[in-house]
């Protein structure tokens, strides 16, 4: 449906020596018909620029963009289709609802301009009403757009994007301007709409839980490159590098050296003793590595059970009660670990405890200071 190949976009930067910096650096991905694809990353990672290149609002410096077998941009073939001829729907971060029009006129606008300007009036009415009903705003058609609440504006923007029956729907952080409760309910709403309409969607967000909960597949971006691409489970459970492990969810890193294989995994030597990990990513025997384990996977046990594999004794340095869980900071002989346990488990500060790092949740990654390999051609699992 959507193919992006070797997309590049540079900006002028007077501070860097080359004079130009890559905002989007040889990015490639493919989205199949009807799927929900998310570009996830911190601000400035190039995700919005990538989206705007697909939209045609930015002019890329190289690469190809193909939607439904139609070349929208090609650096080599010198094809540039202007944004108004691309037939894509887009929802902007600010919704970009035109304040001088009412709800109906906002949605009808795309049918009254450009190539669609000859749409018969009756058909305009029918299609606008259908689009408004899809987002459940049918009863507000005559209202002024500025009189809508944030959530309603967001749905109005969606209706306007859908009314042209676009080949691709582009969403630029559409939920980021809403308060937390509304955001959660609109997540379900958006997912339902996307599935019902069967519309191929590219979604941009910096919110990892949004990305994980809504997508069929996620591309994590860092400094203009795709760091890892895959379905939400593999992104969360099998991060391929420390950046993804750290950015998607939170994690503990323990430095060590891979020393050898074992029947149920690999052994990593660390200052606190050997740790058995279930998998290694991008490292081999005798390589320095980072063991990654998520706080919620660590088991905190009472004192005295310091015997099994991956068990270490430590001491509670601090604890935070967050309501749904208890977060402990535990001091080991070398370094610290963050652990999240159920709120019922209460250990006072200063209490000696034993932590258990389950083998199946521990993985060894290539160290942070090594250049992050851009897995452009990485097979996705």
């Amino acid at each position, binding site marked *: 449906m959507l*193919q992006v*190949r070797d997309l590049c976009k540079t900006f002028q930067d007077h501070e860097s020596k080359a004079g130009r910096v890559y905002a989007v650096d040889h990015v*490639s*991905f*493919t*989205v*199949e018909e009807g*799927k929900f694809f998310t570009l996830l990353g911190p601000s400035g990672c190039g995700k919005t620029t990538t989206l705007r290149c697909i*939209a*045609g*609002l930015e*002019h890329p410096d190289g690469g*190809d963009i*193909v939607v439904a*077998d*139609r*070349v929208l941009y*090609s650096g080599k*073939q010198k*094809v540039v*289709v*202007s*944004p*108004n*001829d*691309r*037939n*894509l*729907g*887009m929802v*902007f*971060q*600010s919704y*970009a609802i*035109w*304040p*001088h029009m009412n709800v109906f006129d906002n949605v009808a*606008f*795309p049918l009254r*301009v*450009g190539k*669609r300007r000859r749409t018969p009036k009756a058909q305009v009415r029918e299609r606008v009403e259908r689009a408004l009903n899809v987002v459940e705003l049918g009863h507000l058609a005559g209202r*002024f757009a*500025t009189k809508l609440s944030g959530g309603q504006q967001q749905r109005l*923007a969606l209706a*306007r*994007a859908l009314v*042209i029956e676009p080949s691709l729907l*582009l969403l630029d952080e559409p939920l980021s301007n809403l308060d937390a409760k509304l955001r959660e309910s609109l997540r379900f709403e958006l997912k339902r709409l996307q599935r019902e309409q069967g519309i191929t969607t590219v979604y941009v967000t910096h919110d990892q839980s949004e990305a994980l909960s809504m997508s*069929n*597949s996620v591309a994590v971006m860092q400094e203009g490159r795709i760091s890892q*691409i*895959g*379905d939400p489970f*593999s992104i969360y459970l099998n991060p391929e590098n420390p950046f993804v492990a750290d950015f998607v969810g939170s994690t503990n890193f323990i430095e060590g050296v891979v020393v050898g294989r074992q029947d149920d995994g690999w052994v990593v030597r660390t200052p606190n003793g050997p740790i058995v990990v279930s998998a290694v990513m991008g490292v081999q025997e005798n390589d320095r590595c980072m063991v990654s384990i998520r706080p919620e996977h660590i088991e905190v046990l009472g004192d005295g059970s310091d015997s099994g594999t991956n068990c270490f004794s430590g001491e509670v340095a601090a604890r935070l009660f967050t309501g749904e869980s208890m977060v402990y900071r535990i001091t080991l002989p070398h370094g610290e670990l963050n652990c999240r346990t159920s709120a019922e488990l209460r250990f006072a500060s200063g209490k000696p405890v034993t932590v258990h790092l389950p083998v199946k949740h521990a993985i060894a990654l290539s160290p942070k200071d090594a250049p992050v390999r851009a897995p*452009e*051609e990485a*097979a*996705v*699992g």
Partner: protein
Amino acid sequence: MTALLAAPGEVTPDLPRGERRRRRPSVTFVVAAVCLLVLGYLVLSPLVYLVWRGLTTGEGLSLANIGAAYRVSGSAEMVGNSFAFAFGSAAVSTITGTALAFFCTRTNAPLKPLLYAASLIPLIVPGILFTISWVFLLSDDIGLINHFLRAVGLDFLVVDAFSLPGMILIDGMHQAPLVFLLMFAAFRATDPALEESSLMSGATLPQTLRRVTLPLVRPALAGAVLISVVRGLESFETPAVLGIPANTWVFTSRIFQALGSYPVKYDIASIYSITLLLLTVAGLLFVQRINRRAERYQTISGKGFRPRPMDLGAWRWPVSILFGVYFLVVVLLPLLMLVWMSLLPFYQVPSVKALGSVSLENYTRIFSKPGVKSAIQNSTILALGSATAVMLFMSVVAWLTLKSKIPGRRFFDTIASVPLALPGLVLGVALIFIYLRSPLPIYGTLAILFIAYITRYMPYGMRYASSSLAQVSTELEDSARMSGAGWFDSFRRVVMPLMMPGILAGWVYVMIVSIRELSSSILLYSSNTRVLSVVIWELWANGETGVLAALGVGMVVALMLLVAVVYKLGGRVGVRDA
């Protein structure tokens, strides 16, 4: 899930055929090119012709004209007068304008609303009317104020309007509202917490004023002084009405005289015009430099703060009386004098006896004067035409400057701002030079006035258009493009409506200043293309003060009604909140 994402390598061994269209220049590019051509023609051609005319004689390129122009007797005195007049009136306007702005923003003195009115109304009253009504307030023999001062024995305060001090005083009062507005903005932009923390450190109020408040607004103050000096150099009405009879010449009146005498002294006019232009350009470049430096002083934090007014205590009422006097002198007295003049068949100093001859005869006589009707028609056509043209053109130029991605877009703003430094009289001189020879037969038609007005008021239109466009988020336009709208559709149906409040405000402003315009029109009109300000000038020259005043009152009332109606309407266009 794996099927979802094939390895990119095997996706498209060869890309499907793209739409190969004829390579044609993008719409934005064409629009930019047209705008650049028009801007360049309007702005650069007068400058080039002026310099060309000044630096050539019958034998070719030479500097002989310069020497000849400055060897004319009285030219040294003229230069001295020009500077004395410009700096003097700048001093008057800066001192009054700044003091009033300070009291208005920073203190709890009552009667503040009077000051807002006092800052707006003089912008509406044409300068020629203001000056003429002051003749009847301040001239040595018939001036009302001078009569009053002599009557109460304050002879030493008497100033004659027809003298350099009189010119300075009257022009300074006309400029004061401009300084007031500039300084008002500056005082409003300074965080009062800076003053409060000075007070908390133990400084007294006068110490705080001297050591914190004034230094903070110093860049703005310097800018205001320079702008007033430049305006003083450009000023035509006061030197023409008051200076010529008093034989006190400045640049503008000399240029006017050179072109009005026989044989016409084009060489002198062009050399004086170039000199004046160099002075105003230097002044405004200096202002720009100060403003750029001033950005470091900026204390605007983005979040709005309402300055907490200082308590003046016992001084509240004396300060308010000052406001009242200012309002009386700058707004009320000139207008009342105009009304009084319009009611008498021939001028008499206001008295009970004179009340007997009051009549509305002058108002009925307006239309019997030859040329008045066509002048009203011409002024209306020109004002509507130039306001509409300026705002439409500048909306597009503002869009190119702020929103387009074409290289060198900042340049548009620079060219459109050049006429700020172009005195009206100088522009008139330059346009005469161009269209006397140009194959375009517009000399002596309304078109030449139209070109002059558009050129002069472009910079103001640009300010209004770009400040309102800056508030229109780019995403609003992007979403129109994504909806399938081309450049023209998205500009007309999304960008323009959202800019409407600014466009409308600019439209009113350009209307008003076009109707007031005298200094270019006086050089460019012909017997068929008189405009209102020119008719007033001619009535003044013929001594028909009664009809002049009646026409003036009509003009002021019409302009005020226009402003009121448009601002009333302004609430209903553009973005609707209700």
